[in-house]
């Protein structure tokens, strides 16, 4: 597990991403043999979902600006088993690259028809699907002329406390990817590619929306779901 963490996940300290310098723990993580505390975790049901939580283009009176997209994929464990009925949360900037958040001072317009937050549960086969708009790139203060590539933030719970994951999804072909220290912090190029969603003609809906596929693999000792989870 620890070896896997080293190769797949970013290091704690990655100075090119400046905010890690004073926040990364300096001591190695302490190995913990999984107990009931780690193999259990919060479970969420349909009651946590509102009517348009999985369609970020329909949460307001009008439609948001931007390129309409469908983002969908499967959530599985490391053995390829689907993780059914698990909560997936997303949040993102609008098409202009601005978050509907008071701390975002980027001089780009807010969109009154876009908040940028969504959630859904995977189905019985671990599949999820969101309709949204493609987020814009946005500048940040990390280094001179720094721009985050377009991305959607993902939060997943999986079956246990150990499987909890927060990550970001990027878009295939974005020229900003190779300049982004947050994506580049993932040491293994193959693992890095797992964060880049591929354009997908099967998900693309004729005359309506472009499709992107983003599959997610959760780790953790409780990664094999129980039948009734």
């Amino acid at each position: 597990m620890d070896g896997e963490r080293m190769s797949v996940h970013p290091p704690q300290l990655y100075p090119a991403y400046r905010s890690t310098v004073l926040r990364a723990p300096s001591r190695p993580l302490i190995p913990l043999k999984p107990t009931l505390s780690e193999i259990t975790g919060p479970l969420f049901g349909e009651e946590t979902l509102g009517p348009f939580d999985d369609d970020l283009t329909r949460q307001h009176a009008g439609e948001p600006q931007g390129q309409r997209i469908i983002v969908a994929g499967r959530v599985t464990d490391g053995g390829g088993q689907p993780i059914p009925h698990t909560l997936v949360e997303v949040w993102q900037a609008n098409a202009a690259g601005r978050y509907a958040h008071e701390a975002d001072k980027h001089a780009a317009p807010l969109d009154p028809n876009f908040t940028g937050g969504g959630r859904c549960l995977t189905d019985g086969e671990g599949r999820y699907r969101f309709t949204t708009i493609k987020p814009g790139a946005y500048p940040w203060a990390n280094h001179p002329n720094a721009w985050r590539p377009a991305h959607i933030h993902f939060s997943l719970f999986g079956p246990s406390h150990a499987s909890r994951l927060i990550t970001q999804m990027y878009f295939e072909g974005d020229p900003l990817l190779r300049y982004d220290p947050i994506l580049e912090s993932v040491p293994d190029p193959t693992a890095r590619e797992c964060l880049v969603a591929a354009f997908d003609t099967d998900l693309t809906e004729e005359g309506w929306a472009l499709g992107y596929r983003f599959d997610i693999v959760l780790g953790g000792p409780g990664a094999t779901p129980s039948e009734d989870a």
Partner: protein
Amino acid sequence: MTALPTPSQTVGPFFAIMTALGSNELVAPGAPGAMEIHGQVFDGAGDPVGDALIELWQANRAGRYAHPADDRELLLDPDFTGWGRCHTRPDGSFRFITVKPGPVPGDGEVLQAPHINVSVFARGLLNRLATRIYFGDEARANAADPVLVALGDDARESLIAAPDGPSAFRFDIRLQGERETAFFAI
């Protein structure tokens, strides 16, 4: 066939857009056994971390987790999920209202002392940090806890919340530095 786990990325500064779900009150204030856990998150310079997301996962007062992997015959409370989240204020502070969990099984026959499982996310953290809150008024249980006894003094000390007034505990999280909180690989 095994697949590579999806790599972690930072939660960034704008996660409040998704935190509409979840509360820092796992029980209502004044509910039987309700207590407060409060504290602050600090960075390596000792400055408050005002944009962290803290999540708790815990057993109920009887020591049972609301999860199918915990099939022991202990009372399950339908109103208590055992999960909560809170984002820190500009002064790095957070506050939860919850109950003290009962002891839960550890490896083999050994019971673990009452503890709450914690996830810490923030801008500048590329990975979720996992830690545990133990309770300063549980000295005997803590002394026998298999996770705590395996730690060095400083690491153990960093996980023990100090009683701080009636029905309240203080638990500070130091991400980096001399008094760094113990974080686990889980």
